[in-house]
């Protein structure tokens, strides 16, 4: 129980983005940007990560809220809670896949304080990494999960590169499917990053899950008008109906034409989560399905194409038929 008390830190509560960026720039590697805290406090209570300075972004009103933009899209403040996104009528009416994804995150209490910005920039959940051992992701030179007896049922099917942890977010695949753009403010000013490029794998930097570095703040997520009101599908499979991270999840956005029962998929973006260290855009499935009739046959072919090249570890073979079936359902049932 005594390990549950977090190590001491100084707490700062700026009320502007500029103030937060200035503080985080000053603190560098000893600073920590805090949103809802649902990821951060686990690290702090286990004493694995011990920043000296914590900058609480929760008081910055400009980072909260869902607003429709002049170009026909929607902009979501990074500190908007998952509950607010789940219940937003704008998101439900126009970008339902994101509301469905937000609804499946964790538990109601966590959704009430957890933020979309935190959910997409959360750290890997590999239990060896979380335990605090000196693995590659922690700056060491070993991996416990990618071994013959390592407990790796939750780990990746693709992209293994010294680290086999997966992207654990439910909202991230939905945002990639929606071709969202992340707005980041850092010491060098503001920049926009496509959702697909926001998430990075160990081949780029094994110690980070996203492009965010010390001093950066994710301020907003923009959803383009292009995919507003499209046909959507989201499904998450996890051990329990609540709390658990996905074993595999799927998010799809489609433009469909034709009469009911004889539809054609004109355009599609489909993304799988928890099978790779980043949300995996299933480009092969997209090529297979684009321009085809939206039938059970197409769906079945799509499922088979989705799992080509998957390299299972010793305990996560089940993810292959699971992903195949989720892709099939997405194409067939959207």
């Amino acid at each position, binding site marked *: *129980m*005594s390990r*549950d*008390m*977090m*190590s*001491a*830190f*100084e*707490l*700062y*509560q700026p009320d502007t983005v500029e103030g937060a960026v200035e*503080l985080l720039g000053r603190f560098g590697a000893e600073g920590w940007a*805090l949103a809802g*805290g*649902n990821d951060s*406090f*686990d690290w*702090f*209570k286990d004493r694995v990560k011990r920043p000296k300075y*914590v900058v*609480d972004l*929760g008081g910055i009103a400009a980072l909260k809220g869902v607003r429709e933009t002049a170009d026909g899209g929607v902009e979501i403040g990074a500190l908007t809670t998952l*509950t607010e996104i789940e219940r937003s009528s704008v998101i439900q009416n126009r970008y339902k896949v994101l509301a469905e994804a937000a609804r499946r995150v*964790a*538990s*109601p*209490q*966590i959704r*009430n*304080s957890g933020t979309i910005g935190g959910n997409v920039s959360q750290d890997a959940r590999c239990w060896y990494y979380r335990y605090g051992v000196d693995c590659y992701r922690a700056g060491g030179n070993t991996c416990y999960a990618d071994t013959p007896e390592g407990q790796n049922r939750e780990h990746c099917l693709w992209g293994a590169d010294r680290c086999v942890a997966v992207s654990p977010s439910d909202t991230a695949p939905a945002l990639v499917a929606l071709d969202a753009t992340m707005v980041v403010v850092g010491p060098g000013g503001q920049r926009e990053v496509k959702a697909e490029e926001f998430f990075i794998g160990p081949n780029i930097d094994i110690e980070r899950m996203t492009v965010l570095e010390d001093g950066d703040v994710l301020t907003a997520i923009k959803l383009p008008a292009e995919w507003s009101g499209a046909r959507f599908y989201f499904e998450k499979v996890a051990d329990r*109906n*609540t*709390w658990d991270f996905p074993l595999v999840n799927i998010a799809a956005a489609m433009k469909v034409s034709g009469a009911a029962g004889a539809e054609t998929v004109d355009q599609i973006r489909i993304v799988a989560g928890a099978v790779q260290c980043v949300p995996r855009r299933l480009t092969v499935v997209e090529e297979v399905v684009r321009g085809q009739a939206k039938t059970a046959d197409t769906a079945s072919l799509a499922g088979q194409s989705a799992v080509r090249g998957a390299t299972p570890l010793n305990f996560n073979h089940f993810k292959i038929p699971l992903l195949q079936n989720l892709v099939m359902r997405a194409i067939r049932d959207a």
Partner: protein
Amino acid sequence: MADNTTGRGYPEPRFDSFVSKATSRRQFIKGVIFSGAAVSGGGYLLSIAGCSGQQGSAGGVERLLTLSVNGQMRPVDVLPNETLAMTLRYKLGLTGTKLGCDRGECGACTVLVDGVTNYSCSTLTHAVRGRAITTIEGLEGPNGELHVVQQAMIDELGPQCGFCTPGQIMSAVALLNEKPKPTRDEVRHALSGNLCRCGAYDHYLNAVMRAAETGERVSQA
């Protein structure tokens, strides 16, 4: 015999880590309060955190704040790394809120912040400084009459050991405040962030459905 026995055959407990032998009880308590720890049973958790008694660096949060809890304004000295659960239990004496896992994975610590459920173990007290906090102790009426959900828990034998019960009740109260006549599935969903190791889930659902059925508009918690 060692010089710290009192004739009862076992030594007096020693508090060397906190105070020298020459300090009186009054001085000890003052010192403990000044150093930001708490005097109550679990307070040792706060004092071993390595926090000094001095004010933090310029620009950091002010340690003394006034928290709105159950309709009362409570002044309290709060460390930057202190969770709401710790403050409620060890500094404000409100031990109805329980610590089960302290990791946001069980729901025993559920309280309401501005009427919305929240894991108090995973919330910094400083982050909810200006908000209205409601704990299980705040549900009873002005004359001590039980909240309709509390009464329903008794009538339907909701709890077994009772440890998850405060958290379950807070989740139920938040639901009924927003949706006075939920379906059983909606109650299931609303209480999905509260675990019960005794497995009394069905009894909790019965109790909440009964509270809803009682028909009274539950007062704003």
